[in-house]
């Protein structure tokens, strides 16, 4: 037995004991934060020491420390924020940082623009068909059906139509997020109770009044659900679409080429960026939800 492996085992047992002890304390905000944190750190430590202990080759699984070094060394090549007052707008340079350039290409240009267009179009469609039960009855099953399909397979077609640039990635994202968002919004707009509808009727409220004052607020939790599901889909769509063709920049491009060159530390660094971007994106939408639908039972708990 070598020391790294024994160390990993001991660390694991100690951390687990600590977590068991912490979980049996009175639950506070601190323990709720501490326990998963300790668990996460334990995983990283075990990973690091097991990789070292078993002398796993870096082309198979690099230790976290190596990934971290790669991450930092790449980000250290970030260009500074260049304020070009003479030319007008403030520009942000990625310098020689590949991670940054990939992030801008895939997340900002591909995923975000597709997300906004797709969710926006779905929302508008849902409101537009709100007054037609016929269209709703028709579109809801179709939308549910399409939402379960492997839409990501549309990627090669869209790359063919819109070229290798970020536009085709945005198009993939639009199609991926459209149906889940549509289905959620349509369902949400039907989420009022019979009593709430009757109340609006006793007020002889007009259609726009009903829409603004009852249906949309009542639909908000559903709409946020669609928005949250779509954050993950958007990032997946933008990355995977790059496997079908991309310029020489982008997270999906980098992952597939660096895997081919067996420099897995770079791949993992990309995954770290994707994980941070994905969680942050989701987190922002979740915070927005908390701020605006604080009244919903699921948010009060």
């Amino acid at each position, binding site marked *: 037995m070598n020391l790294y492996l024994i160390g990993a085992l001991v660390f694991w047992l100690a951390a687990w004991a600590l977590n068991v002890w912490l979980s049996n304390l009175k639950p506070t905000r601190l323990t709720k934060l501490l326990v998963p944190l300790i668990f996460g750190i334990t995983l990283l430590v075990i990973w690091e020491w097991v990789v070292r202990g078993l002398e796993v080759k870096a082309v198979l699984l690099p230790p976290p420390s190596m990934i971290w070094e790669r991450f930092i060394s790449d980000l250290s090549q970030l260009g500074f924020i260049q304020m070009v007052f003479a030319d007008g707008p403030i520009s942000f340079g990625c310098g020689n940082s590949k991670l940054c350039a990939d992030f801008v290409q895939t997340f900002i240009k591909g995923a975000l623009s597709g997300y906004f267009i797709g969710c926006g179009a779905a929302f508008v469609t849902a409101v537009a068909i709100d007054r037609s039960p016929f269209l709703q009855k028709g579109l809801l099953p179709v939308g549910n059906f399409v939402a379960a399909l492997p839409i990501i397979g549309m990627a090669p077609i869209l790359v063919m139509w819109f070229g290798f640039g970020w536009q085709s990635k945005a198009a993939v994202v639009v199609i991926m997020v459209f149906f889940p968002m549509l289905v959620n919004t349509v369902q949400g707009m039907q989420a009022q*109770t019979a*009593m*709430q509808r*009757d*109340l*609006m*009727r*006793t*007020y*002889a*409220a*007009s259609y726009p*009044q009903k829409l603004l*004052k*009852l249906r949309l*607020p*009542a639909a*908000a939790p559903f709409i946020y659900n669609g928005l949250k599901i779509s954050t993950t889909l958007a990032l997946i769509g933008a990355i995977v679409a790059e496997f079908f063709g991309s310029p020489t920049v982008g997270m999906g491009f980098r992952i597939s080429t660096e895997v081919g060159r067996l420099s897995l530390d770079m791949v993992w660094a990309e995954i770290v960026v994707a994980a941070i971007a994905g969680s942050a994106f989701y987190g922002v939408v979740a915070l927005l939800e908390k701020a605006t*639908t604080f*009244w*919903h*039972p699921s948010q*009060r708990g």
Partner: protein
Amino acid sequence: MSDIVIEAKKLSLTFETNDGPVHALQDVDLTINKGDFVSFIGPSGCGKTTFLRVMADLEQPTGGSITVNGMSPEEARLKRAYGYVFQAAGLYPWRTIGGNIRLPLEIMGYSKENRVRRVKKVLELVHLDGFENKFPWQLSGGMQQRASIARALSFDADLMLMDEPFGALDEIVRDHLNEQLLELWAETNKTIAFVTHSIPEAVYLSTKIVVMSPRPGRVTDVIESTLPRERPLDIRESQEFLDIAHRVREGLRAGHGDD
């Protein structure tokens, strides 16, 4: 003639269901005068709620005629002639208490300062002043129901339709709200149609008690109350009160015997 608020003649309503037609209302005749407090009492399925919903144009009768303020129920609804209080408070959780009371005022296009004034006034009427900026889920069930009454009072409707508004509340809260409702009625001089399944509640509140029976839903007795308009809670122990309650119970039993 102008004193008549609701006038129903041979009113019928039949629901078509998978198990055949259900006669929710059959040949109901009733007149409600201005300033009346009318209770509808009867076992479940006797059509009392359906009757109220017909007045509110939430259901369409299948026979007979009914007028509200001399108009059809639909015209009355479009003129916003009544305030409706449902079984549950049904406040919007995303609006504050003040916001909920403002809702009908916004829809009906009242001016901003008018809205502020009215919200303040009705909150005082139901003794909820100070709770304007609280959210419904921060209030007790009784307070929520008071807010929903305030919501129905906030605009200029002389008619209040109340569908078992206190049904889900406990006895003590209910007594208290009954007392307040009588005060409100005296202060605002509104006409109230009130559905309940509690005999003491009906007798305590009403100037007129309509006893109904089920299958088919129809009126079996209309009792004009002889109690004075001023009613302290302990009037419920008076002989007069018990006599009226007895008559209501007899009416209910008679309706049940037919079944």
